[in-house]
């Protein structure tokens, strides 16, 4: 591929409650260069090339057990490709 610019990936989450804010904090903690922007009702986190959401980090920020499928309650939209959705982590990146 000739274009070598780094492409962002990201998620739009509901800016709804304390739990989602902690989820955002967990994503920021695990992903260097994470940028957080707000729109009415929405919070967007984007990172260069690859985003990892780790269960352990989320649990630390929430102070309770958390299963990765719970992420479905927070997510509104995303860009990138969900390459992994396992018990311990979710990874969003471009493949090529």
């Amino acid at each position, binding site marked *: 591929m000739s274009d070598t610019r780094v492409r962002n990936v990201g998620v739009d989450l509901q800016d709804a409650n304390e739990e989602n804010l902690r989820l955002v904090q967990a994503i920021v903690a695990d992903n260097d260069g994470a940028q957080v922007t707000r729109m009415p009702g929405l919070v967007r986190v984007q990172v260069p090339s690859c985003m990892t959401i780790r269960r352990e980090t989320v649990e630390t920020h929430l102070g309770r057990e958390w299963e990765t499928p719970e992420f*479905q*309650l927070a997510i509104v*939209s995303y860009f990138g490709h969900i390459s992994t959705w396992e018990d311990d982590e979710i990874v969003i990146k*471009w493949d090529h």
Partner: protein
Amino acid sequence: MARKLSMKQRYAALTRDLDWTPSYVDEEKLFPYTRFEGIKVNDWAAWEDPFRLTVDSYYKYQAEKDKRLYAVIDSFAQGQGHLSLSDASYINAMKLFIQGVTPIEYAANRHFSFLARHYNGPGPRFAALCQSVDELRHTQTEAHTLSAYNKYYGGFHSWPKQFDRVWYLSVPKSFIEDAMASGPFEYLIAVSFSFEYLLTNLLFVPFMSGASFNGDVPTMTFGFSAQSDESRHMTLGLEAIKFLLEQDEANVPIIQKWIDKWFWRGYRLVSLIAAMLDYMLPKKVMSWKESFELYFEEQMLEGLFKDLEFYGIRPPADVAVAIAEKEHYSHQAYWTLYQYSYAAGFTTTIPDAEHLDWLSAQYPDTFDKYYRPLWEKAAKIEADGGRFFNTGLPQLCQVCQLPMLFTEVDDPEVVAVRDTVFEGERYHFCSDGCARIFADEPEKYVQAWLPVHQILQGSCGGPTLPEVLAWYGFQDGDSGEYVGSADQIDWQQWHSDEPVRS
């Protein structure tokens, strides 16, 4: 005690262990629709659903989403939430939504349940089944949410009938029926990839942020609740396209043709959203142009299509036209809705001074030059005691069914019209994109139910305007000018100390 299975193992148990190879019926007989489109699938087992949904986890999280939504709807109704909207004119955006979008969700429910039976692989069958249930949930939650407004405002009462009859609703109707009348793979590229992945953010996210900003809490909640399913649907679209491209190189040109077609079909459909975003929200979230740049140019062209380049896929054929049109799209679409809103299930009005200035700021190169003068003309007519309504019937595009309202890319003062002759009849199009779609399958599009033609043929209640509007199911207060409408008068009385009108 046995260790709990991992997500991966549970998904494999559902999609692989519960599947079987037919022994007394040919696979070709069991799945009769997956060959005629020319798509080759060599290994259905290669289909991966990253969400790894299983029945128990699907219902667990969907039930939680619904519980949250219905709590919001209840408290909104109890707290007289309809009074805390930014303005009653906002509700016109929701009328357009329930008339034009909700019936698409219902149609998608029907078709995904068909696909849940007809794909050869258990992975896509189960993903289609979940999406089918999702789409039914969206139809229901949208109807439940907006029924709270139906008690107070006009225009919400007959949307399923209107979807089948009204001129501007033939745009979404013909879109989804074109997809449903395609084969099972084209439908995936049409709906799951082109609509859900490429364009859904343009449709849903600004709508729902707009709802949030304009005090419409239930719509925001159902929107984000539905959209959380949408991220699964986007994934289905992306998995589908990657799966088909990886299965066989012969699939690549077929997929490219469908991307070209369905990008354009979907893009023409969202012209109604462009109009809504720039003109129907009292408190603005972002302009159509900004939304198009963010959600389409940045995320899709700069992101996704770089990924698809790997497979030999290029961006949609008419993408340059869409980029050029972003300066004009919403203005041309809303100007048309304004002129014809005497025949619509919502009302329109001239943007106020602050709104016009916002449009000038968002569209510095085009608004003051081409579109502000139109509104000044309309304002002059109004100042003289009139209202500019266009009572002539517009010519419609044979493919997207929009009136001929878009201009040439290199001359915004000339309306674009294309035409072609097929079997001795002449057909008209709004663009090269629609003309190309027709040229590829003329036998399909000559059958289009065009609302204007149908009125002239006498299929719509009678020859006069009142007869047609009655056949559309419109009631007093549904249509026309917003200023002085029943909705506006009610709103003013609810917000004054005067007793509510008897």
